[in-house]
């Protein structure tokens, strides 16, 4: 697809605007068209899009372009900031009843993921708040729904209360409450049947359950792939039940999840958790700011990519990439790469743009001086050595000579050799990615402690496009 994300769209709209110090109304108008399409493609409700672009337009009008940003980046920044604001700036927490039984009711359309989420939530809250959960099976309609909840309960070692499919949910929940009281459960999570918000009879059933349970939380489970209808569904559930929070499911997919924004904007319901996979520990507290860049179809990494592509000759980069892939990557290429990194500006600044990296940077020392040292070391190599890294790797006398020539320690030379090998390995792995992504990956590989690169999730999202 040509326009996978807002940044690409902006670049297209901006060809004419580039170089201007201030944006005219026309420029912004053009850009807002792209913002609009981009948000629509992300499934943000069209009414929300309309009011949103209007606001951003007013904000952007007349704003002076920040040094170092082109007008496109500037507008992307405004859009991102505003979007983050709309998503709610801080994480919404679960309402817990610390002295008695915390009661939660899961509601939503069919197939949104209520049952799985009920299990995940019980598991998560048990862990974080040390509660003793009870899952209650109120879905008496969908074949094997109770079976499903029981299996999940078994897997998690959590009690499941059920009375089969022939007892009314309002009766089941009343009995479940007594059971919880008697058995020392201090968290009830009721898994209700999926239903259409326009099904009056079924909605009435929920109202009855609510009246008996008097839940602290009514959580609306919303499939993150939902389109324009998310607003209708959420508003309707909210009107009939006064929903206290939402859980966005299936976010481990590749949907951009604009429904989240619509939900927030139209109903004001805070999103509390997000489902990140089918495993029962894959439920996370929702982070609004991450959602904003996802809806835009980019991490801040896109800004980085812009920086890179603005500063570097693409042909140059492609030939470098090819070299890397071929496995003939040598010190000359390493040096060229360093120069590219330098061109892009401060390493620390670039790293911060990559989502998730700023956090890990705290733990790993990236010393910009290192870059200079590496350059010096490479400059102390002979032409032959630069072309054939093996020469150095195999000869300790060469390493010694290079170290003394560059005024560094032999251990520094060894580290460089390791770095080069790491780079090569990384390149092999990256073979399937595209050049822009690699460009953002490179500076990481050579310069960070190996520990920082490993570990789950640290880079997660960083290379999503």
């Amino acid at each position: 697809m040509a326009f996978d994300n807002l940044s690409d769209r902006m670049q297209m709209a901006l060809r004419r605007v580039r170089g201007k110090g201030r944006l005219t109304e026309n420029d912004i108008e053009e850009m807002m068209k792209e913002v609009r399409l981009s948000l629509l493609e992300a499934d943000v409700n069209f009414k929300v899009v309309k009011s949103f672009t209007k606001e951003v337009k007013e904000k952007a009008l007349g704003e002076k372009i920040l040094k170092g940003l082109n007008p496109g980046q500037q507008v992307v920044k405004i859009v991102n900031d505003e979007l983050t604001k709309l998503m709610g700036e801080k994480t919404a927490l679960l309402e817990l009843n610390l002295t008695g039984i915390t009661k939660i009711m899961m509601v939503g359309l069919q197939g949104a993921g209520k049952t799985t989420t009920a299990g995940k939530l019980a598991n998560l809250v048990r862990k974080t708040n040390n509660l003793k959960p009870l899952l209650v099976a109120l879905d008496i309609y969908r074949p094997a729904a109770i079976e499903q909840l029981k299996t999940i309960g078994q897997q998690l070692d959590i009690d499941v209360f059920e009375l089969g499919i022939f007892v009314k949910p309002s009766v089941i929940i009343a009995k479940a409450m007594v059971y919880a009281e008697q058995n020392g459960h201090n968290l009830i999570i009721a898994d209700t049947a999926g239903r259409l918000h326009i099904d009056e009879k079924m909605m009435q059933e929920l109202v009855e359950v609510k009246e008996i349970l008097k839940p602290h939380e009514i959580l609306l489970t919303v499939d993150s792939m939902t389109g324009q209808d998310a607003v209708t569904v959420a508003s309707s559930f909210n009107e009939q039940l006064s929903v206290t929070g939402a859980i966005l499911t299936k976010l481990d997919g590749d949907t951009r999840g604009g429904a989240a924004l619509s939900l927030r904007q139209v109903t004001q319901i805070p999103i509390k958790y997000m489902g990140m996979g089918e495993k029962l520990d894959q439920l996370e507290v929702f982070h609004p700011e991450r959602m904003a860049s996802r809806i835009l179809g980019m991490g801040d990494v896109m800004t980085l990519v812009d920086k890179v592509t603005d500063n570097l000759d693409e042909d140059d980069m492609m030939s470098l990439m090819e070299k890397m892939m071929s496995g003939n990557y040598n010190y000359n290429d390493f040096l060229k790469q360093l120069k590219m990194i330098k061109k892009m500006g401060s390493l620390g600044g670039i790293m911060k743009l990559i989502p998730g990296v700023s956090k890990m940077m705290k733990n790993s020392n990236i010393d910009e001086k290192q870059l200079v040292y590496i350059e010096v070391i490479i400059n102390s190599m002979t032409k032959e050595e630069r072309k054939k890294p093996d020469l150095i790797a195999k000869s300790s006398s060469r390493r010694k000579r290079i170290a003394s020539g560059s005024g560094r320690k032999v251990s520094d030379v060894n580290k460089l050799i390791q770095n080069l090998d790491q780079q090569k390995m990384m390149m092999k792995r990256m073979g399937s990615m595209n050049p822009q992504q690699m460009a953002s990956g490179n500076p990481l590989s050579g310069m960070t402690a190996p520990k920082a690169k490993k570990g789950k999730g640290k880079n997660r999202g960083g290379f999503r496009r």
Partner: protein
Amino acid sequence: MGFFNSLFNKKEKKLNREKYRIGMAKTRNSVFGSLKELIDSNSKFDDDFFDELEEIFIMADIGVNTVVKFVAHLRSEIELNKTESSDDVKDLIVEEMFKLYVKDEIVSSNLDILDDRLNIVLFVGVNGVGKTTTIGKIAYEYLNKGKKVMMVAGDTFRAGAIEQLKIWSERVKCSFYSKEEGSDPSSVIYDAIQLAKETSVDLLLIDTAGRLQNKINLMKELEKVNKVIGREVPEAPHETLLVIDATTGQNGLVQAKVFNEVTDITGVVLSKLDGTAKGGIALGIKDELNIPIKYVGLGEKIEDLEPFDIEEYIYGLFADIF
């Protein structure tokens, strides 16, 4: 007017139409009610009109690309023909939407199910779209046509999935094959095909686990399933149906693309169309990938599955504007 009348009066499919009408009543009221307003309140068809038209189609989740293209086309038609009356514009919209779907081809919603052979239909899709329920409904349809039907529980992953399909098989009274939870789906399906051959089953309906299309391993698993089926029965699966939830937005298009790369999707089942969502993404899928819609799900009852009929669908969407 002309086109519209000929489209809907010549046919005598009252029952179906009634179902669509009930199923999609909310759809019409919420979205295309505003279309009527828009057209009736506009005496001239200018930028604002087309912008709003665009929004109305986008609201139905028809893919953004498709909508932009479609509205631009409408605009040029209206300008070219100097269309002025709002009735003519309404006709034009319906007619063009019809053309957008059929594209001068014959689009059939029939499944490729023949007599005297083992027919295999594979059901795929992301999680929670209604694959299992759809299988139950299709089994019911073909049992009523006198076919010998067997269901296979290829979803060995999700808790309760096997049980769910089994209950459906008991409801419709057809044979059912499964292994224990956690089995390799390919081996389940392989065995089921052998059994189907031995017992001269006419129609084998294969359920698979819901999977998000960006899960590479799960998509590989599906590829393998597909291969196994093709190896055991040449030309099979005869149909691979992608079930899409009508509430799905633009991601539906991505789903169709990626699943199609792995399994060669022959049709879409648009489920849960009885809500307020319009399922317009299916039109986007047809437009961009040329994959037809075969069925629409209009309720939870066993008979609430209808063969897709573009005329009925458009009628369902537009009935209020006429």
